């Protein structure tokens, strides 16, 4: 493997350099029907799960077939998407904000053929490549993060947990069975790159052990004051330790103050938190983003801990199924999960979902915690 230069000359980095050009302009990639009717759409219709039709003032129609995809994918996979797009869509394709792929055509017949083609493509081991679905009051793709595939702070894997949950809920991806859209998100640590904090159901990687201190190297690898300042709980202070008879500058941590947020580790590699037994998942529920009927809401912690059970996290899959089933059977049409939980009361939510309530679910973080406690006799037995 010989190094092939594209043109860059390390000796003269500024030579021929192009910077600050931004992305390609979006309208280069509009399918003609989109370019023509932009801003002039009249209404839409979901023909069947995974298939949308938008009608323009001009009378034009665009049919969109949406497919689920593993967000972590190879160039080979993307090229196969290109193949399909070229076969049916004049080479146009788009991704949604939740990592689904959308193929657009101009008539229903082509859309149906496209759908059949997409549903037929499978990996050798049997999983779908491009399952059609993800629309309407169903369960769409899970927004997620890196996990053990690429990040340094995860408390779990992202792609794996998402795969098992989507396997569990697969039939709901291709259906409109829910009372309202149900959105699941996954983030592998508290940094919440998946921004799971406003999801109907959120899967969150969580540590439960305070950092191990790598005293011997800490002072070389970290700025001690930054590590100290990083801790929101004031649990870290500078200290000196004896290592192999040598006194080194390091830090000390008041473990009982630690809430395992990992912010210290973000600032200092000598404070790792990962641990097979300590790490696992928190399940949150009841968040939403849309303003439809009710305001956006934060997700609430409903399961304090599920251990990491790779490769198929059976407890996770079971818990999510329980929540989804309770919601599906009990909520009203148009009612998002969090709205349902508030209507029936969280005491009923736990009962109906078969989840245990524990003291861990009671907020004890800073002043706003108070406002989540119950200051009314209005509760159910």
């Amino acid at each position, binding site marked *: 493997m010989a190094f092939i230069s594209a043109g860059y000359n390390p000796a003269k980095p500024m030579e021929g350099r192009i910077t600050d050009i931004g992305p390609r302009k979006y309208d280069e990639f509009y399918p003609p029907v989109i370019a023509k009717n932009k801003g002039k759409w009249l209404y839409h219709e979901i023909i069947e799960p995974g298939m949308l039709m938008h009608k323009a003032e001009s009378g034009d129609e665009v049919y969109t077939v949406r497919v689920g995809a593993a967000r972590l994918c190879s160039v080979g996979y993307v090229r196969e998407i290109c193949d399909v797009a070229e076969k049916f869509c004049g080479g146009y394709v788009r991704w949604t904000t939740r990592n689904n792929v959308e193929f657009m055509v101009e008539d229903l017949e082509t859309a149906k053929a496209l759908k059949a083609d997409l549903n037929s493509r499978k990996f050798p081991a049997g999983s779908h490549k491009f399952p059609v679905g993800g629309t309407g009051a169903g369960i769409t793709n899970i927004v997620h993060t890196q996990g053990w595939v690429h990040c340094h702070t995860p408390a779990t894997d992202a792609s794996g947990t998402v795969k098992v949950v989507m396997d569990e809920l697969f039939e709901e991806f291709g259906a409109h069975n829910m009372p309202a859209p149900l959105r699941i998100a996954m983030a592998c640590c508290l940094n919440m790159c998946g*921004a799971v904090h406003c999801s109907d159901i959120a899967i969150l990687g969580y540590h439960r052990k305070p950092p191990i201190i790598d005293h011997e190297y800490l002072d070389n690898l970290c700025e001690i004051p930054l590590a100290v300042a990083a801790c929101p709980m004031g649990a870290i202070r500078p200290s000196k330790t004896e290592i192999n008879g040598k006194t080194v500058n390091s830090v000390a941590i008041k473990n009982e103050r630690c809430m395992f947020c990992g912010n210290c580790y973000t600032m200092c590699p000598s404070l790792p938190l990962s641990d097979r037994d300590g790490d696992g998942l928190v399940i949150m529920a009841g968040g939403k983003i849309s303003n439809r009927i009710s305001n956006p809401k934060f997700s609430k912690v409903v399961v304090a801990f599920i251990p990491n059970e790779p490769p198929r996290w059976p407890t996770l899959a079971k818990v999510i199924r329980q929540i989804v089933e309770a919601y599906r059977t009990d909520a009203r049409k148009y009612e998002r999960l969090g709205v349902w939980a508030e209507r029936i009361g969280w005491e009923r939510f736990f009962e109906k979902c078969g989840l245990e309530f524990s003291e861990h679910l009671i907020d004890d973080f800073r002043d706003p915690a108070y406002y989540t406690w119950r200051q009314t006799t209005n509760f159910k037995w």
Partner: protein
Amino acid sequence: MAKHATPLLDQLETGPWPSFVSDIKQEAERRKANPDNIEYQIPVDVCDDLLGILEMSYEDGETHWKHGGIVGVFGYGGGVIGRYADQPERFPGVAHFHTVRVNQPSGKYYKTDYLRKLMDLWDFRGSGLTNMHGSTGDLVWLGTTTPQLEEIFWTLTHELNTDLGGSGSNLRTPAACLGQSRCEFACYDTQDLSYHMTNEYQDELHRPAFPYKFKFKFDGCPNGCVASIARSDFSVIGTWKDDIKVDQEAVKAYVAGEFRPNAGAHSTRDWGKFDIQKEVVDLCPTGCMSWDGSKLTIDNKECYRCMHCINTMPRALHIGDERGASIFVGAKAPILDGAQMGSLLVPFVPVEEPYDEVKEVVENLWDWWMEEGKNRERIGETIKRQGFQKLLEVTGIKADPRHVQEPRSNPYIFWKEEDVEGGWDRDINEFRKRHQR
């Protein structure tokens, strides 16, 4: 044959949902076979080794990526995330495994010629593994070595007319819902505003000058399909000021069962006949609608523009014509003091090229935050620390009841000296003339 046995990961090949394991395995095989005779610029067994190191994580329940690593391209302070394996000997193919964030086209439409070129570049100079897309919105390319970074950047800029996205204490890659391109609800051109702002602020995107990261997201309407209110420091959400347009004939068609409610979004289940009173009028959060059996009336002054009625009867109801957007500031993930959603700062702003009204707000915010924000303090945290009043002051916006969900319940008003007659300086001896000790 696979380089590493992956009995645990293999179990993720089963089940109907697309298996990333199957995909990576296939990619590993393709690389090994190299049918197109590519002169791979990073180790051919990168995919194999990724599976191997991931299997190891599945075994021991811990990540095997080292902490951070500062790499990048000359003159940019972002766009690349350095990453090194903590078992480089066992998995040399992923010893260096940096991520490249490529700025996606606004709205994520692609043409395959462009997409194929992107993939070819990444096949050639990287792992061949991507995220389509990252949570912020970038095209995320997972895994390459340091020497490849400048080369990739060169090809991207010279041949693909494409730039890197953001990382670090920068403006991050903006993102938008598809908006007017294919949605009848869009109140402004989200894609264009996103594109415009990306270009306008290239310097902020590439060169860290902020206390911490800053994200723009653009939703065309209150449905929030790009989740801007939860995921962006600066969230622009389309809205309108005049009346919802009602096509009474179409309303009747819904009532008659000719059109499916909510465009068919509930089609798998039998929810019974559409009941406009129960499903629309009674669910309207402001109670501003009424239906007399033949006419739907909306008291638009009381409407929240929550979209419910429009979503439910898209063929009959349409957004108003006096369009613009609301601006929300400060959304962020929970570290350190808990998550925030964006708080309403500008109830209504016109959104028209050259978008000066929007940019003015942004720049006022930045001026203040760059002055006052602490290191690693998101703007939402600065607002909490200095108070919403400060935000109004620095943006020159007048306080409005729309800024609050409810007025304060504590009366701890920080009056300023100039607000109070007679000032604060008083003479204790004067006071003691009236009040003995």
